[in-house]
């Protein structure tokens, strides 16, 4: 059988080539390891302006809680509410803390004073993380004043942290990171397979045989699919056991949807490989066309809803975008397939389109 023959040959190639073997199995793990530790978005030294109208020991204690946390650096004290707005508008401060006149009085009366915290939302990630710190500090403050109390918060600050209650930015990052790494790796893996055949002249021999384009593409895809799948499983295991990111959702669903993503990514690599005809160019195209979009436009770092409209539309064509959503959703929120229908459908569509494009491009050569 032709397909079996191609798959077998491709496996022998991989086995005999230590470099590609290393790239296939070690690179994703190494990248995840390095970036998993290095890229944290834990925000420190958020410039903060304070408007303390109470000026009591209680209010000072609260402010100290912020400044001692290390996350907030108080750059200025002011008397008026409007000043706080000004600081933030100008970008001089990213956060403002406003303590009302009756802060200590209300606490002593057993009431619930409301402290206003303003956070510059233009960087939604920083904002989210900062809000997390606020609530943690608030909690600590309450516990310090009333160590035995089981009652609710002492001060009323409306904060909400989404999906990441432990406030570890790593939990946020790792699932998206897996998506970005896999997007690059799979395209790289296959981007060399066809161009290698061009480079060494064996493509000409293949084209003179009755082999069908679809057999050739599929035959090259299958071995790398298996490798890509193993990489994904390994990355998920690393995330949960090494980085301690909790996997809230269904692992079966996660791997199923990953498979759809792998199919598209690998087909894309093959398409590049067919068009480029040269190994160096092919791998460079693969890097460029996957890494930058996956890193910048997938919602991994920058939230898509904050992007300009045109860019938002553009992100629809980036498969990593859906994979980031899928992985974040399953990891952090434990979402089910019903919540991911849109992503699943588009990823499948993308995979099929790219696969058929690759076959068609190859057909042009085979005649």
């Amino acid at each position, binding site marked *: 059988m032709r397909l079996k023959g*191609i798959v*077998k040959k491709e496996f*022998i*190639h991989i086995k*005999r080539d230590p470099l590609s073997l290393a790239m296939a199995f070690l690179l994703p793990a190494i990248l995840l390891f390095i970036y998993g530790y290095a890229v944290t978005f834990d925000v420190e030294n958020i410039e903060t302006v304070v408007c303390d109208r109470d000026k009591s020991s209680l209010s000072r204690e609260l402010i100290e809680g912020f400044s001692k946390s290390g996350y907030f650096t108080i750059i200025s004290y002011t008397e008026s509410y409007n000043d706080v707005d000004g600081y933030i508008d100008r970008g001089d401060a990213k956060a403002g803390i406003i303590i009302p006149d009756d802060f200590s009085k209300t606490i002593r009366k057993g009431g619930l004073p409301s402290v206003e915290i303003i956070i510059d939302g233009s960087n939604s990630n920083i904002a989210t993380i900062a809000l997390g710190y606020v609530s943690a500090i608030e909690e600590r403050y309450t516990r310090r004043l009333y160590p035995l109390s089981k009652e609710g918060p002492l001060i009323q600050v409306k904060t909400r942290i989404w999906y990441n209650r432990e406030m570890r930015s790593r939990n946020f990052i790792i699932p998206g990171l897996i998506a970005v790494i896999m997007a690059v790796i799979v395209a790289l893996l296959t981007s060399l397979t066809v161009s290698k055949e061009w480079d060494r*002249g064996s493509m000409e021999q293949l084209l*003179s*045989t*009755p082999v069908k384009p679809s057999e050739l593409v599929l035959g090259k895809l299958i071995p790398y699919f298996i490798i890509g799948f193993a990489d994904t499983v390994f990355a998920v295991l690393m995330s949960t056991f090494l980085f301690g990111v909790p996997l809230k959702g269904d692992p079966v669903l996660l791997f199923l949807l990953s498979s759809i993503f792998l199919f598209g990514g690998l087909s894309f690599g093959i398409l590049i490989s067919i068009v480029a005809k040269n190994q160096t160019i092919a791998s460079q195209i693969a890097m460029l066309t996957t890494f930058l979009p996956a890193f910048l436009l997938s919602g991994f770092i920058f939230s898509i809803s904050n992007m300009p409209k045109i860019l938002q539309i553009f992100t629809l064509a980036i498969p990593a975008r859906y994979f980031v959503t899928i992985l974040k959703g399953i990891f952090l929120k434990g979402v089910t397939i019903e919540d991911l229908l849109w992503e699943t459908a588009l990823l499948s569509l993308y995979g099929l389109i790219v696969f058929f494009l690759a076959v068609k491009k190859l057909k042009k050569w085979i005649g």
Partner: protein
Amino acid sequence: MVDEYAVEIKGLTKKFGDFTAVDRIDLKVRRGEIFGFLGPNGAGKSTTIKMLCGLIMPSSGSGTVGGFDIWTEPEEIKMNIGYMSQRFSLYEELTVMENIDFFSGIYNVPRNKKKQRKAWVLNMAQIEEKKDHPVKTLAGGLKQRLALGCAILHEPPIIFLDEPTSGVDPLSRRNFWRLIEEMAGEGKTVFVTTHYMDEADNCHRLVLIHRGKIIAEGTPSELRSSYMKFDIAELLVDQPFVAMDILRDAGLEASLHGETVHVSLESYESCQDEIGRILKNAGLTIKGIEKVPPSLEDVFVTLVEGRE
């Protein structure tokens, strides 16, 4: 099949941009023939073969291979041909056996025949004891035979060989040609390009192309007699190099052929004595001189130079 010709092309043309690599070629190759396609570098030999094997599309013209149309039936053609490209195209890091396995899979060799065909290739390439060695460790001659074996695992009736013996030692070349003759003996058509003119003599029929155009065709002996207007004198001398230089200094066209010197003459009979005189004056003795038919090399050099 009623078709007498294995390959038949009319007005076949290939353009790369403005450049015409193959220019309105007509040719017919009979079944069971060893057909030699000759020409200097860049003449368009490989381009023609690639069009016939369905690797590239012609710009215009028509043709059939094995009775199948090159425009509309490339799939059928590919089932019926074996092609060995000018560039070595087996997988170097795979072993001999792995390569044979791969191509027998690609060509869909039927299960019941597989074992026998694989054994046949090993035997034909005389490579049995090397079958688990990576191909990159083999000598050039063995590689070529293995490449041929892999290209004809499926027993195609028509075989295209693009400079199969380039860069191979003379003994291996001779062995390789014996294989080609064997295949022709079995009724297979062999379409072969070469630029070794001594090999051209092994072909049944020849076509010479130059800059994409056919400039001569016929059997080797037809070409010799009809295209060569000079007589060739073959000299046996002690110091052929010195003799060649002396004759060239005297304004004659002389070339080395093995141990002998060939001189082109307007007429052998009238110039024979003068050659003897020139060499004797230089202190050389002639051990023998005779009129020989021109070699194909003599013919092609004259033909191509006439076109430049």
